[in-house]
């Protein structure tokens, strides 16, 4: 049944890439949240300071994106992993 195999391989390939994304996500978050390091601070004379509302929108926007990303990845990997987990040998507790 070559068609079936192809399907499985494709799925496990997707699964692995999703796990890559799980690994990568915190670094994306870190990079985005460290962007404010580049913002001008009053007194250092590097252009106009960022208004608070923009800063709020940016930081909370990144937060929402990360949450949605983690949610989506859980949807893709966590549930699949739970299904596959039935085949795993029981771990010593």
């Amino acid at each position, binding site marked *: 049944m070559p068609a079936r195999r192809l399907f499985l391989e494709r799925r496990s390939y997707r699964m692995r890439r999703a796990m890559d994304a799980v690994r990568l996500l915190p670094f994306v978050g870190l990079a985005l949240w460290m962007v*404010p*390091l580049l913002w001008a601070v009053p007194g250092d004379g590097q252009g106009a300071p960022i*208004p608070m*509302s923009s800063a709020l929108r940016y*930081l909370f926007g990144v*937060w929402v994106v990360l949450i949605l990303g983690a949610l989506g990845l859980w949807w893709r990997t*966590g549930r699949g992993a739970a299904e596959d987990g039935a085949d795993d040998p029981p771990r010593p507790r």
Partner: protein
Amino acid sequence: MVALNELVIVCLAYVAGLFLVAFLAERAALRGKGGALLRSPLVYTLSLSIYCTAWTFYGAVGYAARSGLEYVTIYLGPSLVMIGWWWGLRRLVRIGRSQRVTSIADLISSRYGKSNSLAIIVTLMAVIGVTPYIALQLQSVVLSLSIFAANGEGGSYNPVSAALWVAAGLALFTVLFGTRNLNVNERHHGVVIAVAVEAIVKLVASLAVGIFVVWSLGGGVEQTLARVDASAIGEWQVQGGRWATLTLLSAAAFVCLPRMFQVMVVENDEERHLQIASWAFPLYLMLMSLFVVPIAVVGLDLMPPGSNPDLFVLSLPLSQGQNGLAMLSFLGGFSSATSMVIVATLALSTMVSNHIVMPIWLSTRHGSAVQSGDVRQVVLLARRLSILLIIALGVLYYRISGGSAALAAIGTISFGGVAQFLPALLGGIFWRGATRSGALCGLGIGFAIWVFTMLLPSFGVGAALSAEIFNQGLWGQSWLRPQALFGISGLDPTVHAVVWSLSLNALAFVAVSIVSFPDPIERLQGAQFVNVLEHSGPARNWTASVAGSEDLMIMAQRILGAPEAQAFFRAEAEAQGITGGLPEPTPAFVQALERELAGSVGAATAHAMVSQIVGGTSVSVQDLLAVADESAQMLEYSNQLEQKSRELTETAAKLRSANEKLTQLSLQKDGFLSQISHELRTPMTSIRSFSEILRDAGKLSEADKTRYASIIHSETLRLTRLLDELLDLSVLENGQVTLRMGQDRLSDIMDRAVTTALAGAGPALAVRRETEAPDIVLHTDIDRLVQVFINLVSNARKYCDAAEPALTIRTSRHAGGLWIDFVDNGSGIDADVQSVIFEKFFRISGEEAEGVGLGLAICQEIMSRLGGQVIYLPIESGTAFRVSLPQSVLVQETGNPGKTAVS
């Protein structure tokens, strides 16, 4: 206005509700009901929310009012840690489960060789680091009460006694629900459920106040944002250094705080909950911090100058006459404070009782882990006393510090203290080279720097450290100034303290780990921790040859409780195949028991108790092999590779030789075919030509006719002989020959052979027979043996080139059988053809004899059929063949042999 008494009543009702919820949860867990709820990822995520304490609930607004968006770093760090669950938390949870870890001190001590000294140091550091935090919670509750007291008529409000009452209530709750069962791995369901309820209360309260402020006071999102921009904190004003440092600090503290470790690792039920929490918990944090800035801005606008921004969450609704909302807000803050204190106290008391009280108790009664007295009760008592002690310490700190400092500052200091565990923790789970000495040095240096640069200065100039030390440095050393270590001044004090303490901590940890050498148990544990994801198998390190199962049973009963211990022992005995008795104290069993005990009293204590009975630990060869797991595996792998390559080489050699043989055989076959064609062709040619002469030539004399006819006849005979011999050989080679066994005397056989061979025309040959035992009787195929002898004799007759050819037949007995040598006086056979004389169609070149070259080949075949052999003997002069016959053909009886052929 809400009266204070009214508030107290509501508060008490809320607490009673919490008690009820906790009680119901405990009862449901005991009956095995409600497991789905108790073990749901929702409850796990909500219990993580004890990260959001009163510091979050009240302090964040104050923080924002003072320093703008900096407050948010306290939530960014944990969000990143949670989103990055795959890297660190997954490992921690797996280790916590496989090693039955009870606290962060237990984890660190267990990783570094179950070292009790390390556990004690971590515990002390945790107590010192967290006590200000507990004081902070008490302070926030007292402060929030004071708001109501100031508004109402309650002039009798005494903050100190209020703090005492709150502390007493919290202690009672923690003792009741936190020390109900001993095994930490049996989760504290009551506490967890109560914490989850409180998490919902504080989230709802925070959102309610935020919605009220944004939509009721602020007039909608856009207007509120415009108001934010117009306010004193309307611009981005966070220093980059503080932004990064505080994010790092909060991330570190999130992992290292004892209470977070408790709910995240110890109370974790399933690993997959982690991934659900990886989005759910950041969501919770985001919602908790969403309305902080608007509340701060609106509070700064509406509240009279000089009011405490830490309490805007409470005072803002109160000032607007929203009593119900204020009440909810108060309950939210109260929930934040109480849940944090309960879990933190629980975690700390576990550490204190397991790592400080129990070892001391054990050493005072040393060698007596099996004596009378219920250890279980001792442990519980130790834990309860620890709870009271820790809460008392919090109250004491509150009294001493006077409750004046801003909430956020205390929180940061506490974070800085516990963050010192990070290098030892991360090093322990990712780096096998981390050693106990390294961990001790790192922790010690980091903690000392933290105390000197963060904790002591926080009391203010002139309180713990004199102004002289601030300006001149410790002991007048200018490089030891608490806010400008090594002469580097101008840094923000928090950044300064965190960067120096964490970096020197990590440096000392790594450097000392590199130069020191771990002991075997440490290495074993290191391998287990670092490779926990590859194999979660238990560590083995007992040689329990002297351990008495009864002693272990008595001890286990007193720690686990009699029914649990008996059930455990019964299960182990059944696993060992023993029915109705105690299990054998195998290393695996003792290991499992120690793990079970560790769930109650911590790894180091359990190890100490079992070692009192078992009589010491040792590391077996298998353990050392496990330590050297990687190298052993690699060695084995390379051995396998080597063996395989050797096998391949052997196979290749075999194939090569087989190929050579086949090539040779093919050549032989070709040679054989050409030989046989040649052999057949020669007589055929003469037969054809002589028969043509007879046919065509009309006038032939009678003599000629006769001559030609006899030539034809003799050639035909030769052909027939050739074909006969070929047939004979083929039959012999194919093994189709049937031996006709018979008995005869050797001398008679020899007579027949010599007579036959010497018959007919040909050169004369003198045959001389030398025999040791003339009366030997043989039992074999007589005719075939005669054939061999004839062949050898006639060969000698044909090929012997001496002037007077003579053949000596020498018979001799030998251990292996009988040797019959045929030696003539000719010139022998050249050495280079000796190896091929037994090949088919081989004839001595230059000889014009009638043979076809099959004789010796046939002889060899016959002899191998008869169990003997014929070989060429290289001697000085002459040609010599030796026929050897096995012992089995000799018949011992010598009398009256007779020719009784049996066929």
